[in-house]
Every structure is written in structure tokens, then in C-alpha cells.
């Protein structure tokens, strides 16, 4: 029961976690379909749920066949072989055969005690068709995960693929053994189903666990990178919303599109890239309002990832007077940059004429990581300064916008 519960939680967790991938491509949709069908299969077969719903004994089998179809479809899309038509045809044929055999047998025994009784040919045929279909799909999956695992980069990717191969082979083994035992029992061989069934169930459960865990393992590194991207999006938000409000013409994504772009893994990185570019567009548009008479501060050091290709140093401004409510900039270049942005925004809002010789923004390294690290620091400093300038008494500050972007 504990194993079954754990498997259910994992399966539904994976199904929920992969939901955004539905918008990506057919491969992702096929894998998601397989996971959801498997989760449904295990859910309706889970004793507390089955008792409560009065699940027909054959329903989990039919859902299992649907999961097998999506698995075959996924394999076909990944390997670029096989056609959808024959897979669909085969699956429909199996479902019809199972329904016909179940009707002919007048019900299919699924419990160990039921299987231990006399088994009519239709029942035997039912189990053979079911387990052969599922077993074949799982053997094909095992071959795929095992062979690609050999070519995968060593470490987590290979480990994950081999864990998946081990999981699918365990379940395939379960299917094969069950079909053989049912046939053997029907032929008169004594089979102790009540003794075998708990062990077989555990093997099946472990197989599903290995399969799901294997699918999760390779993605851990990528998951960390995606989590970092989401965090950076949040850190950059104060500076970005300011630029968006000041220069709405530099925003590319509509609010609706921006939400969708948050869903996929690669799309989050694209969204982060856009956020950086749109901030930089705004800063470029603000540059004429940045006076060159500003005090130079040290540029971010190598530890900040800033290889400086620009001849100019970071720009700081004299600390605002008491009326500004801001603190002394000290020697933090990010705070100096944030202060410079605030001043340029203020000068632009006051319709002051552009500086005859504009200043320049702090230099930063050439890579995306350099930009994100630096602008995140500036954004955090900007948020703090803006709060101090706008709201020196500590009253709540209105949110800049309700936009999802």
C-alpha cells in the first residue's frame, strides 16, 4: 500500500510538472499522455479508490493499454520510425479483443483467488492479449532506453536512462511471467497465485518507481538552471517594469504571450533574455539624460564576471540630498548604477534637455550570465532606492503594474 501510494504521488507529480510541456511538441504530448494514462491506471486500481468508486476490474487494464499506446507513440516520435496509423489500429484491435473476450468469459477475475480457480479459454485469451501488448510495448521501451543510455553522456543522463530501462524491463518481466502462469494454470499446472501475487505487485511497483525516477534524474541539472532563470526573472522585475512603463515601445511580448513564454523550459530562458534586452533598450534610451559630469566608480570586478570591453568606467552620481531620502552610494557600483538610472528617469520625466555629452552605463561582461548577474544586482539596488525615494516614511508602495509580464 505504501509503495502504491508513493508511486501514485510520483506519477501525478510528474504529470502536473510536465503540464506546460504540452504546448511544446508531439513528443512531449505523447510522453505526458503515457504518464497520465499510467497514473489513471494505478489510481483506479488503488484499493481505497477502487472500493470507493466500484471500479470495474477491467478498467485499469483498458487504461493500461491506452498508456501503452502513448508509450509506443512516444518511442515512434523519438526514433523517427513507425506510423501512427498502425499503432492506433493495433491499440483499437487490442481494446476490442479485450472487450470481446471479457464479454465472452462473463467477467475477468483479477484477484489472486479468482485466478486460482478454473480459467475458461476466453479468460486465458484475455490475459495473454493484454500482457502481450503491454509486454511488447515495454520491451521496445527497454531496448530504446538501454541503447540510448550507452551513448548518453556519463553521469546522471546515462544513469537515468538505464534506470528507466531497468524499470520497463521489470514491468515487462511481470507481464510475461503473469501471462505464462495464467496459461500454465489453464493447462493444469499448479500455480499458487495468492503466494505469487504480492511479490509480483511489488516488482511491478518497483518497476514503475524506477521508470519515473529514471525520467526525473537526468533533468535535475536542467531543473536547477530553470529555477535560477525564474529567480533571475523575479530579481530583474523592478528594473524591467520601470523600463516597460517608461518605454512601452521596446516591449516585444504581449502580456498573454509572456505568460505562455514562462511555461516551457527553453522559453523561460528566452523570456529572461528578452527581459535583459528590454532593460538595456530602456537604458540606452535613457542615456541622453545621464550627465557626463557624474563621478566614476570602480567597475564590477572579475568576480562579477565583468570583462570590460568598454573604455569608460562605471558612472555614479553624487548622493542625493536629504529630500531624496536616499542613502550614500558608498562604493557599490550596482547601487551607483541604480542611482544613475533613477536620476536619468527623473530628468526625463521633468522634460529636461538631453545632456550635451551623455554619460555611459557601467561596463559589463559579454555573456548572458554576466548581464543577468549585473542587472540583477542593479535591480535589487534600484528597488531599495526607489522605495526610499518614493516612500521615505515607510508607507506601502503601490505595485508598478498588474501586468503578468
Amino acid at each position, binding site marked *: 500500500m505504501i509503495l502504491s501510494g508513493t508511486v501514485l504521488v510520483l506519477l501525478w507529480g510528474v504529470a502536473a510538472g510536465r503540464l506546460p510541456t504540452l504546448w511544446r511538441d508531439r513528443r512531449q504530448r505523447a510522453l505526458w499522455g503515457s504518464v497520465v494514462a499510467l497514473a489513471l491506471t494505478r489510481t483506479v486500481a488503488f484499493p481505497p479508490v477502487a472500493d470507493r468508486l466500484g471500479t470495474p476490474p477491467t478498467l485499469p487494464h483498458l487504461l493500461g493499454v491506452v498508456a501503452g499506446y502513448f508509450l509506443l507513440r512516444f518511442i515512434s516520435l523519438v*526514433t523517427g520510425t513507425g506510423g501512427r496509423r498502425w499503432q492506433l489500429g493495433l491499440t483499437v484491435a487490442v481494446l476490442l479483443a479485450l472487450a470481446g473476450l471479457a464479454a465472452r468469459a462473463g467477467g475477468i477475475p483479477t484477484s489472486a483467488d479468482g485466478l486460482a480457480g478454473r480459467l475458461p479459454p476466453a479468460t486465458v485469451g484475455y490475459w495473454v492479449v493484454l500482457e502481450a501488448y503491454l509486454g511488447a510495448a515495454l520491451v521496445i521501451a527497454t531496448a530504446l532506453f538501454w541503447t540510448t543510455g550507452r551513448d548518453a553522456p556519463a553521469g546522471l543522463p546515462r544513469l537515468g536512462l538505464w534506470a528507466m530501462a531497468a524499470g520497463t524491463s521489470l514491468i515487462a518481466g511481470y507481464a510475461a511471467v503473469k501471462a505464462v502462469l495464467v496459461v500454465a494454470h489453464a493447462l493444469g499446472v499448479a500455480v499458487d497465485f495468492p503466494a505469487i501475487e504480492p511479490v509480483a505487485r511489488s516488482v511491478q511497483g518497483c518497476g514503475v518507481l524506477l521508470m519515473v525516477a529514471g525520467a526525473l534524474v537526468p533533468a535535475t541539472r536542467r531543473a536547477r538552471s530553470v529555477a535560477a532563470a525564474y529567480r533571475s526573472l523575479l530579481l530583474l522585475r523592478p528594473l524591467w517594469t520601470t523600463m516597460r512603463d517608461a518605454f512601452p515601445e521596446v516591449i516585444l511580448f504581449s502580456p498573454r504571450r509572456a505568460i505562455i513564454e514562462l511555461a516551457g523550459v527553453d522559453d523561460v530562458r528566452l523570456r529572461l533574455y528578452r527581459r535583459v534586452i528590454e532593460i538595456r533598450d530602456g537604458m540606452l534610451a535613457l542615456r541622453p539624460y545621464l550627465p557626463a559630469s557624474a563621478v566614476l566608480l570602480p567597475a564590477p570586478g572579475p568576480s562579477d564576471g565583468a570583462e570590460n570591453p568598454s573604455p569608460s568606467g562605471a558612472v555614479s552620481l553624487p548622493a542625493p540630498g536629504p529630500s531624496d531620502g536616499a542613502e550614500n552610494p558608498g562604493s557599490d557600483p550596482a547601487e551607483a548604477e541604480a542611482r544613475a538610472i533613477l536620476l536619468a528617469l527623473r530628468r526625463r520625466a521633468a522634460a529636461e534637455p538631453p545632456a550635451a555629452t551623455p554619460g555611459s552605463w557601467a561596463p559589463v561582461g559579454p555573456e548572458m550570465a554576466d548581464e543577468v548577474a549585473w542587472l540583477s544586482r542593479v535591480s535589487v539596488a534600484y528597488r531599495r532606492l526607489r522605495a526610499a525615494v518614493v516612500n521615505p516614511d515607510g508607507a506601502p508602495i503601490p505595485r508598478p503594474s498588474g501586468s503578468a509580464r
Partner: protein
Amino acid sequence: MKGLRRRCERRLRGVRIPRPFDLDAFCDEVAARRGRPLVRRPVPGLSDGAPCGLWIATDRADYVFYDPGTSPLHAEHIVLHELAHILSGHTLAGDSGAAARLFPDLDPAAVVRVLGRVAYTTEQEREAEMMASLIRGRPAAHPRTTLGRLADVLGFGE
């Protein structure tokens, strides 16, 4: 917007994008596709009252100008925006007045096309901006092998 992205992805199919990204190599790729030289030049102060990037096509070469007064990544993106105009074959003449102001010696008769990066208010500008973002902001595609496709779905590798 989804249509815009799909359209841009379609246009980028077959275009070799160096990984890790290298702007010089990508410019060479664009020049090779066009079969003519591509000249890239920084113009300080280009964005003061003018576009921050500019593509001028003459009958002999493509010239891409950009404002270097920004971060290296942003400057690179500005260039990519102009390259995206070139790859898309955008044909609308832009603000040739901006080119005349910036390059008074330029013979207007020699200019075939002028497109500048100002805002994303027209379809062509949105296309160029989206393509530039896809070129630089999207991780490298997995190889088109079984392992590559599996890596893409399961989310391992880069």
C-alpha cells in the same frame, strides 16, 4: 504572437547558428548566404535621435551600423536584429532620412534598402526582434538523433 514565433523559427531553419554563439561567424554565414560582403561598424551616438541599429543595403554590399554605447550583449543583439532583417528579406524602405543625417556623404541613389531598429510597432520590426531573440536567447537545439530527441524531451544535456 505564436504565429510570429513559428514564422521566425521557420525562417531560421537551415541557418547555421554557431554554438557557442560567435557573432563574427554568424555574420560570415549571413554574408555567404547573400553572396556579398557584410560590413559591421560601430557608430557612437547612433541612437541619439535615431535608430540604435541600422542596415543599409547598397547594390554591392550590406552595411550594419550599431550604437556601441551599451553592453556587449545588447550591442550584439542590435546587430542580430539588423541581420534578421537581411535574412527575412524585409523590403520596406525605412527612414532614409536617418541614413542621410548619419552619413551625409552617402549617395542616396546607391541605397537600396534602409531599415533601423527603433521600436517593435510594425510587423517587420517584431519579426526582426523575435528572430534576433531566437538566435541569441534560445539554447542550442539538440542534435536530430534518437538520443538528441530523448534528451530534449527528458531535459538533460544542453
